[in-house]
């Protein structure tokens, strides 16, 4: 490579920098430093004028490195990198020095020291620039198909959305029928309709869609690869089927807890809400006069702290239905906090209350008690508001139990290398701003396998996951981070320390295929997975693995420049 010829551009930023830092003095100082071929001051380096000056001087002075000392790389680095690229210089041969936020703006009372500091910061930047390398921004192709795991409402919404956008979708469902948990329900709020009718039209669309390939009943057996390029094999009724996908959406749902409380399973007239729906659906419920429902059964307790979000509404819906079937019936809902969040739920709760369903609050320190030998005969509960103990006659006790994670989450988590969080639900990349994607690129999540969600939420999450998944599919190419790790296999000893510290599983120990090193076990970086944090580079004992753009020699040169060492 040609000897370094560094160009230095120092910004006045109007008076923001120039009013404090003696910019001309910094320019003169820069000129005196090794490898500096050119230095100038600009009123605004980011202005049209400043940018063209950078471009012209790269050509005129044959510069092969550029240093700009102005504001912060967090906002302006792309601008200056583009300027370099426009002038035919690799954008990674650019280095940013912050003398505004980190100097002039914080040392307004001390011009002399601010100037000295600016000089030193510029010197450090130049020292690093001398060792900068050109970097390529790799792109890898995205195979234009998606795999959606789970054929409930979340999975079907995601699949349909992507298919309607024109992408091939492999929908993998473990049951022999699409529809998921919804199929088991009797009525759904707010329309109080038989859900099978509603779901049927969606199922038909999915089944008849030319872009959707249904794998059913089928389970994923193996998955390898990375964003854009996953190899998948599923067991489809005993037959192994393999296909490729660019992205994966996990929407496997959840299951309802069967409690070991309130003598469930022991007394015939104790049901879960789901059992109740099943019986209503099958027309097997029979007569009832006094119905008691208990909420938060097995939820919001020390062993299972979370609130399952939708059980309150399920209870209210079914309570209303019981009252509808038998207006003479007495229906009680024993609850803790009632989670009727939002507009419609709260409205419905009011309506149901007005329709005569009685709501009684109990406390976890004073749980309701089931009375009866063969069957429940009554339920005793302490009413907090009335401050008295009530004994409610009961011929049907219905328990609202939470959704719990599916048993096969762990297996799926290992296969896809995606994490499971507290409680056994899948863990998204960021609970606030990246709710439907995993930290691993190219894999997305939606519906109750992430967290208990009702129908509308599951559908929205299915769509949202599809939106995120459509991005790489539509782009066709994924840009690979350029600031990635790179291994020198000659000096790598294959100890695996880098692989242990890598948060993204981007490093593997492999037999080298490089001539002269065949068979040697060395670290290999999968650049498609590497996010460029540099943890590996800091952990490697002999510098065999380096982070591009932040190499040992670059950082060391800065430290030495600051301390006046060569």
């Amino acid at each position, binding site marked *: 490579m040609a000897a370094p010829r560094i160009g230095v551009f120092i910004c006045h930023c109007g008076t923001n920098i120039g009013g404090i830092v003696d910019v001309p003095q910094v320019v003169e100082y820069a000129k005196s430093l090794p490898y500096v071929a050119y230095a100038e001051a600009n009123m605004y380096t980011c202005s049209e004028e400043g940018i063209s000056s950078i471009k012209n001087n790269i050509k005129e002075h044959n510069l092969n490195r550029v240093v700009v000392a102005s504001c912060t790389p967090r906002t302006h680095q792309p601008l200056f990198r583009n300027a370099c690229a426009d002038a035919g210089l690799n954008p990674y041969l650019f280095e940013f020095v912050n003398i505004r936020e980190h100097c002039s703006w914080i*040392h307004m009372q001390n011009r002399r020291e601010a100037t000295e500091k600016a000089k030193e910061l510029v010197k450090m930047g130049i020292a690093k620039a001398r060792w900068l390398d050109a970097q390529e921004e790799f792109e890898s192709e995205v195979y234009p198909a998606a795999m959606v795991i789970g054929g409930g409402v979340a999975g079907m919404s995601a699949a349909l959305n992507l298919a309607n956008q024109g992408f091939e979708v492999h929908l993998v469902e473990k049951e022999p029928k699409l529809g998921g948990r919804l199929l088991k329900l009797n009525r759904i709020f707010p329309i109080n309709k038989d859900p099978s009718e509603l779901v049927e039209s969606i199922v038909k669309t999915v089944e008849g869609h030319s872009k959707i390939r249904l794998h059913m009943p089928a389970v994923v057996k193996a998955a390898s690869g990375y964003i854009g390029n996953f190899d998948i094999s599923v067991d489809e009724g005993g037959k192994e089927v393999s296909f490729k996908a660019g992205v994966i959406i996990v929407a496997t749902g959840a299951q309802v807890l069967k409690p070991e409380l309130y003598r469930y399973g022991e007394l015939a007239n104790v049901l879960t809400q789901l059992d109740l729906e099943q019986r209503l659906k099958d027309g097997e419920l029979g007569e009832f006069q006094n119905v008691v429902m208990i909420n938060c059964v097995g939820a919001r307790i020390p062993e299972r702290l979370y609130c399952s979000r939708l059980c309150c509404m399920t209870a209210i819906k079914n309570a209303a239905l019981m009252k509808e079937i038998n207006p003479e019936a007495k229906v009680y809902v024993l609850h803790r906090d009632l989670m009727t969040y939002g507009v419609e739920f709260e409205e419905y709760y009011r309506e149901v209350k007005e329709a005569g369903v009685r709501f009684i609050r109990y406390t976890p320190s004073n749980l309701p008690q089931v009375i009866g030998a063969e069957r429940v005969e009554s339920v005793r509960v302490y009413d907090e508001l009335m401050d008295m103990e009530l004994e409610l006659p009961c011929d049907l006790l219905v328990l609202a139990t939470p959704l719990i994670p599916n048993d096969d989450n762990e297996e799926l988590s290992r296969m896809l290398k995606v994490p499971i969080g507290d409680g056994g639900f899948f863990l998204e990349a960021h609970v606030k701003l990246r709710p439907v994607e995993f930290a691993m690129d190219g894999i997305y999540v939606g519906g109750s396998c992430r967290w208990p969600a009702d129908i509308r939420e599951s559908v929205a999450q299915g769509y949202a996951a599809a939106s995120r998944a459509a991005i790489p599919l539509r782009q066709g190419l994924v840009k690979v981070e350029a600031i990635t790790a790179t291994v020198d296999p000659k000096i790598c000893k294959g100890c695996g320390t880098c692989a242990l510290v890598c948060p993204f599983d981007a490093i593997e120990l492999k037999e080298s295929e490089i001539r002269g090193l065949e068979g040697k076990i060395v670290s290999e970086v999968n650049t498609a997975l590497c996010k460029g944090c540099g943890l590996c580079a800091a952990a490697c004992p002999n510098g065999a693995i380096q982070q591009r753009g932040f190499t040992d020699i670059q*950082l060391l040169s800065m430290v030495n420049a600051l301390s006046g060492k060569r």
Partner: protein
Amino acid sequence: MQDSKEVQTEFKPKILAFCCNWCAYAGADLAGVSRFQMPTDVRVIRVMCSGRVPPELIIRALANGLDGVMILGCHPGECHYSEGNYLTRRRAHVLKRLLSYIGIEPERFQLRWVSAAEGAKFSAVVKETTDKITALGPNRWVDKR
């Protein structure tokens, strides 16, 4: 006596701060945008993650005679790369104790958490560290022979 006192007040330490790109560097930027005034003794080197800073570099900086070195990263649990700062924390504990063992005052090596919103904290950390190191005086470890 008066002489040495004068030398003391004139001592300006040279302190290096490695800031992670996502939190601490952004926090330092915010301190700038907010015009929080602070001592001029700290120089920032930007790294993508606090976990990128190898112990070699800190040891080298202190052996070169720099008066203090800081690593500033995201608060635990907020690392952009999810766990980098936890590894930093482990390494830093071991390194700090080792440095102290051979006689480099513990104040000269600091690990602190500064979020992107903590401009004020960045400035407070800079002030506090500068004060502490100024009080210690220059890093004269290599002159002890």
